């Protein structure tokens, strides 16, 4: 009984963290068809921003939820203006340029923070369920992830801003003809996407020892979750992270964490082979 509760929490945690990791990438890819391979490094910078802010005496939740997203969002804005703006519509080139950016940021972080592990303590303590210990922070991640999905849905579905964003996503030329500058919208979108990456990195920072190359651990997972999710932003994100999270945890508990990771990757390959348009390319068509 206790074990099944623990497994259930772990499964929800796996799904929530996958969705959180992929949200920033999904926004940028879904809206602008830009694959940001520096996504992992944006998360890494979010983590460093949090740790630095906490060390300066800022409350840890303020640092995670406000400071880190803002800082990374601004970095994203600069990157968009300097590099990515020139490469819209050239999918492979943007991938390569952002890959270069990711190397650049790794180098930058190594020079500033050094090639050592930095970390902060988890702000929420764990508790015991029967014979098992559960990390209380897992619930915080699940909570943030759910809140994020709901607020993204509300923002896109009900506000005028969301309407404009969705319109640009479908036909940027028509949006431009109606008087909305796609350039501005893309800029804002990239800011939001980067801020989300920063948020994800900040929230996961207390769980991992942060090194400049930490981003590499996230990028592949985020990448496959977004691609497997397909064209619909939120439905795709939830369905693919749901699938991958469950598979990952089943194999983690059944065999070992390494097999959990490998099972996730194998499922991803099979899924892409069977549904090359992603889950929402086939099911839930036309949803958000």
């Amino acid at each position, binding site marked *: 009984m206790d074990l099944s509760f623990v497994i259930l929490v772990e499964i929800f945690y796996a799904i929530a963290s996958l969705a959180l990791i992929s949200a920033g990438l999904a926004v940028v890819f879904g809206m602008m068809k830009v694959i940001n391979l520096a996504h992992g490094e944006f998360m890494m910078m979010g983590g460093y921003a949090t740790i630095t802010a906490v060390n300066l005496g800022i409350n840890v939740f303020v640092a995670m939820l406000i400071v880190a997203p803002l800082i990374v969002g601004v970095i994203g804005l600069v990157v968009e203006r300097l590099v990515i703006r020139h490469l819209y519509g050239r999918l492979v080139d943007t991938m390569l340029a952002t890959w270069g950016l990711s*190397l650049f940021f790794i*180098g930058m972080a190594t020079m500033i923070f050094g090639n050592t592990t930095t970390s902060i303590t988890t702000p929420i303590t764990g508790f015991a369920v029967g014979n098992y210990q559960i990390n209380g922070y897992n619930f915080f991640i699940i909570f943030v992830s759910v809140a994020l999905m709901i607020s993204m849905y509300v923002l896109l579905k009900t506000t005028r801003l969301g309407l404009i964003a969705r319109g640009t996503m479908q036909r940027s030329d028509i949006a431009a003809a109606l008087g909305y500058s796609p350039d501005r919208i893309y800029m804002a979108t990239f800011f939001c996407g980067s801020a989300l990456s920063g948020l994800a990195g900040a929230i996961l920072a207390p769980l991992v020892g942060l090194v400049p190359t930490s981003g590499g651990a996230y990028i592949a997972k985020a990448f496959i979750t977004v691609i497997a999710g397909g064209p619909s932003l939120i439905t795709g994100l939830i369905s693919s992270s749901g699938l991958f999270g469950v598979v990952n945890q089943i194999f983690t508990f059944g065999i070992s964490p390494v097999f959990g990771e490998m099972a996730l*990757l194998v499922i991803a390959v099979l899924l892409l082979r069977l549904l090359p348009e992603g889950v929402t390319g086939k099911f839930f068509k036309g949803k958000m």
Partner: protein
Amino acid sequence: MSSSWGKQDVAAIIVALVLMWSMPSLISTYTLTVLIIYGMLGLSLGLIWGFGGILCFGQAAFFGLGAYTYAIAAINMGESTIPMFLAVIVPALFAAFLGVMMFYGRLTDVYLGVITLVVTLILFKFVNSTAGPQYVIGEARLGGFNGIPGFHTLNIPGQPEAYIWGDALYYVCAAALLFLYFFVTWLLRTSFGRIAVGIRENETRVSLMGYDVRARKTILFSIGAAIAGLAGAFFANWSEIVTPGLFSLGQSAEIIIWCIVGGLGTRFGPIIGAASLAYLKFLLGQQSLIDNTLITGIILVLFVLFLPKGIVPAVSSLLKISFGRRAIRKFGNRRTSRRVGKING
């Protein structure tokens, strides 16, 4: 253009031989050997990406697979000739399997990139986790994160005690690169190579002409993997240890950067790009003022932004303009600059 082929080939051989004999006086042969091996690796991706239009994010997978195959086979056999062959065949078969899965599913562009990337990651994670004594192939322990050291290195075929190392290994690698260069040249001049370039330019049109695009892409993909596997086997001989780092994403990234910087759609570009960037990295590794990765990143970004065709096409068009013999503007309506390239660049 067919009349100029002979002249170009002779020039390439002369340049290659001169470089082969003169370079050791500038750079130590130990460093040169690895530059040449990276050149082979660059050539392998240059072939499938530059001429086949297949963007493979996982060329490092074949490189690592070649190195591991060699190491494992060499430990079990105690000599190097058959392991070298295996190191070419195993990656080629693996690529053929992967290619059948991808190309017969008509996956393109990003999806291809994701799958090759994911497969590299799977291999990396798997090899990394094989530290326990239960992971044994024959007499070879896979060794997990620590890799496999102490295998039999390259020897003269039939004489297991006559090792090829140091300067000799350099000349063997250089000769192998020269051979591969002409193999690729030959391949691109056959109808197979010409159709491969056709597929790169317009896949639908070629398949409507009645060619089996899927089979051709698969074959080209596994040829590229075979070359990468051979490079891996040489690398294993050079470093005398194989580690999971060979499969890493960073390694894959570097191969792609070499191709971009050198110039896609040329045979020479990726080799030049690989050798020069690897040497640059070697030089930068000797100073501690600026981080190495940072510079690699800046180079990639700048090239994508300002010189997306790479060095070799840029230099050769510059030469053509300045010497003016054939200063005809090149074809106008190519699809993207990334895929542009001549057959005999």
